[in-house]
């Protein structure tokens, strides 16, 4: 197990380097003069521009700039953004918010999605099954920003059940509606995936054996069939985490959440390359770690999969 984790972590290094280089390249290919507008209503003095360009290695070719950036990042310094604030400080503040949001979205997605999937799976072909299938198809086809706006209007403005926007230090209650919106697409996918796998496993021989040897149906389904149906679902949730992080950009915009997504979006608009690269790199690393965690979970769910 320990060996496996170390090997996976080592394998992550080239992926992280490649990914960050891609991001670095795209971000610093952003057109526009980074010193424009930094000195108010007049062009910056030549001495300042020269100092700024030297500080950010703007005159080096791209691979060298990237190497210098990595060397600096390795010491834990992600540089400062346009306003002279340390990117690490910004990220720390905003990661708490987005992390809360993403975790809540995953929780919503897992709880509601799996529950709906089980309900429709054990009653295949009945009313509840059709209801789940139709409603999930409905949710999948509506773009998430429309769902967000509709929820905000009906649940927030019209019926006043949830706060319309979110404050800078959000509570769990404030984040519930955004998390639901963020996770809505995934709820639908999780429900359908759970249903398909459960239906397949319910017909398997080992479930019949379990019932034949006298286990209650609840135990046979809950312990035997469900556990084996969870592996594809967990895989999906892991991969989908990246989608959640990307989708957070839209959700955070709708509900005015001060998180990572909004930070990246604003930084792109401000041509704030240092901030964008730092924030996106952090997201990618989190995403890779989550997927490592998912792979480790396989072993827990199915003892036949071993990581030795």
């Amino acid at each position: 197990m320990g060996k496996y984790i170390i090997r996976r972590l080592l394998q992550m290094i080239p992926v992280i380097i490649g990914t960050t280089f891609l991001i670095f390249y795209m971000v610093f290919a952003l057109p526009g003069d980074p010193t424009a507008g930094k000195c108010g209503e007049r062009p910056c003095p030549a001495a300042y521009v020269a100092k700024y360009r030297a500080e950010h290695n703007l005159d080096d070719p791209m691979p060298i700039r990237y190497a210098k950036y990595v060397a600096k990042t390795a010491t834990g310094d992600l540089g400062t953004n346009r306003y002279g604030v340390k990117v690490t400080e910004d990220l720390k503040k905003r990661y708490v918010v987005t992390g809360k949001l993403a975790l809540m979205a995953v929780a919503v997605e897992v709880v509601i999605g799996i529950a709906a999937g089980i309900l429709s799976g054990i009653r295949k072909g009945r009313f509840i099954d059709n209801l789940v299938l139709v409603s999930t198809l409905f949710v999948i086809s509506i773009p998430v920003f429309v769902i967000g706006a509709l929820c905000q209007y009906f649940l927030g403005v019209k019926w006043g059940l949830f706060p319309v926007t979110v404050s800078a230090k959000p509570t769990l209650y404030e984040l519930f509606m955004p998390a639901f919106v963020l996770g809505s697409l995934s709820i639908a996918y999780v429900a359908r995936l759970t249903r398909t796998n459960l239906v397949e496993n319910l017909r398997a021989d080992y479930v019949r054996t379990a019932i034949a040897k006298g286990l209650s149906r609840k135990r046979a389904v809950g312990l035997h069939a469900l556990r084996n149906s969870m592996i594809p679902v967990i895989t999906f949730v892991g991969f989908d985490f990246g989608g959640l992080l990307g989708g957070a950009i839209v959700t955070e915009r709708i509900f005015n959440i001060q998180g990572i997504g909004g930070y990246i979006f604003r930084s792109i608009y401000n041509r704030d390359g240092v901030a964008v690269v730092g924030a996106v790199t952090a997201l990618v690393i989190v995403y890779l770690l989550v997927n490592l965690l998912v792979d480790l979970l396989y072993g827990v769910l199915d003892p036949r999969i071993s990581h030795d």
Partner: protein
Amino acid sequence: MTESATVVQAVEATNAAGDVGEARSLGADAWRALRKKPLFWVSLVLITIFVLMAIWPSLFTNTDPDNAVLRQARERPNANAWFGRDIQGYDIYSRVVYGARASILVGVLTTTFTVLLGGAIGTLAAYAGGWVDALVSRVTDIFFAIPLLLGAILFMAATQPRGKPYFVIILLVVTAISILGWPSLARLMRSSVMQVLPNDYVQAARALGASPWRIIRKHIIPNAMGPLIVVSTINLGAYIAAEATLSFLGIGLQPPVISWGVSISDAIVGLRTTPHMLAFPSLFLSLTVLAFIMLGDAIRDAFDPKTR
């Protein structure tokens, strides 16, 4: 007793069927199953309508989508303008009809590119094996680690679509989504080719001296394409939604280009007072996405013997 009786009955049933029916391939079998599904026909009709709309919008409307009648701005649906008018006084019905082109183009082109790229790379990795496979898989991992929406936003910001001609912007959006969309298809194709490779007919072709290119073209690709086609049909809907999301964020297509995403983005602020401006573009967008997802679902079910 009952067991054997069922077996006998089953054998008789197959014999009876064998007397009248001829041997069918998997494709013919799937087509027979598909023909009986109402959902398949519904989605096919919807897709035909939307594709027609994209090619000849003038078949559906005589109104010029760029004809702004400011005096009637934000009018509710009425006899003159079936879907009402938007804030600029444009006829929403004709905007919706003309908007199909952007979505369908993005969906179809992105799917083509991702299938070609992902399919080719996946096949190469699986067929070549060894260090090629290892290298290709790591490169795939790098692209896979960047969330689709996040990467597309970066790419669009870096290429600055504002003010460029229609097809250039469409191609930029297609490139952005394709660059990040191919890895999942490449992984799928790789695993599916790996399942086909050890089969006897591949070995036989190799023993008969067929060139690698011929083996791949005549034996591997036809037998490994199934999952790729199903997933990419479903993905087509997701790509259309991604395009709309980019337009919604203001970095995909831009006015004066007519697109559902742009219309929704314009209308979302007026959700409370002029819901018709939001409803119709969203409805068409959702129907398109829905049609492709339903088609993919139906094809998958038809090709999967287990669900029959």
